[in-house]
């Protein structure tokens, strides 16, 4: 589970920080494990021009947030809303995560979709992180 890419992003998180005035900004919290993730996305011409994440929690949740930020850059809003569970797991290099840990891996995806749907004025789809 603790693949090189996960440990690398956990120990050296990319795009860590906040953009206080970003177009897209959302935060969520998993009370069961205490993982917290905030994602801020600067949108220009309907594309992601820059992104930062902040938060605390387990290695899986923090590494997946860091990896997600790299996946978002330069993508259109439509494209980032199409990202799904399999994309994240593939990027993490662990296609199989047990039911207890998959929520950690997908928290950042959920937060990104929460913020982006809210930005385009639509309610988040209940199963959008699946």
């Amino acid at each position: 589970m603790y693949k090189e890419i996960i440990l690398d992003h956990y120990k050296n998180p990319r795009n860590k920080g906040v953009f206080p005035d970003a177009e897209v900004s959302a935060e969520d919290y998993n009370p069961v494990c205490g993982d917290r993730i905030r994602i801020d996305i600067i949108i220009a011409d309907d594309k992601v021009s820059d992104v930062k994440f902040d938060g605390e929690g387990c290695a899986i949740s923090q590494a997946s947030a860091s990896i997600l930020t790299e996946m978002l850059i330069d993508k259109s809003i439509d494209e980032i809303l199409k990202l799904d569970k399999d994309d994240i797991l593939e990027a993490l290099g662990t296609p199989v995560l047990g039911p207890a840990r998959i929520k950690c891996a997908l928290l950042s995806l959920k937060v990104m979709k929460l913020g982006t749907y809210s930005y385009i004025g639509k309610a988040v789809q209940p199963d959008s992180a699946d």
Partner: protein
Amino acid sequence: MTSETFLDIKDDFPILSRLINGKEFIYLDSAATTQKPDSVINSITNYYKNYNSNIHRGIYSISIEATEHYENARTNISHFIHAKSPNEIIFTRNATEAINLVANTWATKNLQKGDSIILTEMEHHSNLVPWQIIAKKLGLNLEFIPVNNEGILILDNLDELFSKNGKFLAITHVSNVLGTINPIKEIVDKAHDFGLVTLVDAAQSVPHMPVDVSSLNSDFFVFSGHKMLGPSGIGVLHAKQELLQNMDPFLYGGDMISSVSLRDAQWNDIPWKFEAGTPNIVGAIGLGKAIDYLNHLDMDNVRKHEQNLLSYALKKLNELGDIHVFGPKNPEITGGVLSFSYSDFHPHDIASILDTESIAIRAGHHCAQPLVEKLGVPATTRVSFYVYNDKSDIDKFVHGLEKVRSVLS
């Protein structure tokens, strides 16, 4: 048993000889559920192979045999906790169901708007949520005995808590998160002085130490079979007979009646009045066997063994360093439970990395979210011991923690 000796019984537990990912399985999550010895497993297959039948009504031989085994288990349990009579032992699904039984029968009939239920800040959700619901339904207040930084109950204001409309006390004997053994007799006695009716959640005490309900004098007392080497799906409510006699049934149906007409029914005697429908027959029989096994070990030895393991684990963790233990850190007042944080590593990462070493521990809020919040952390890492653990398990666990550090830093 001297302070240096330990039980040596791993071979009685077939699961502990299993290799997982090629490594010996180390089980350190017995506060969640316990592993089962051969004798308990065999009693289950023996029932299904040789005398599977319904109880209390068959005229034929194996039904009589099943009834005898089921009722003998009840007697066995009543002796184990020193109850005054097997009639005080009600079989339930688990401690949670036993608490719900009391909440839905005794409490709804005897508590009224404005009354207070006294709980503690260290309750498992099972001894918190049912009272929240009953309190909302009936307009009751919930008051809490606070916990200090070391995980010990602060008892200074008991008089005030009990005297201010206090009608009912529901309290855990041993904390499932911190292992703290509460001075339960002292608290129950004081509650009785103020006229409160008491319920003791003994899910983490009955499996681990000698317990005497008659001398404790609690009104209700609950525990789960699966936490004491028995099967899951069987638990116990112990209650004083006069209380049980005056309580309405919890569930209605077969076996809990004495006679039924089209429009009315009379209730069976206690304890059967509270056991509607075909019960978990094999669960009760398996729990009876688990108690035989524990009696054979002797509960004084069980307690001593866990104290020795806890002392050893505290010493080893102290040597490892960068460990913060939540809880009393004193084996005299602590059961075989140890919650801790390790550096700034997240408990889920610790648990996942130990899992790769085939070591099973628990990470999270342990079904006691308010307590873990009070400790100021989102989650803790917990190891808990039982009769089959030994020093080598702790050595491997501490070695696993060294691996956690090397992976994550």
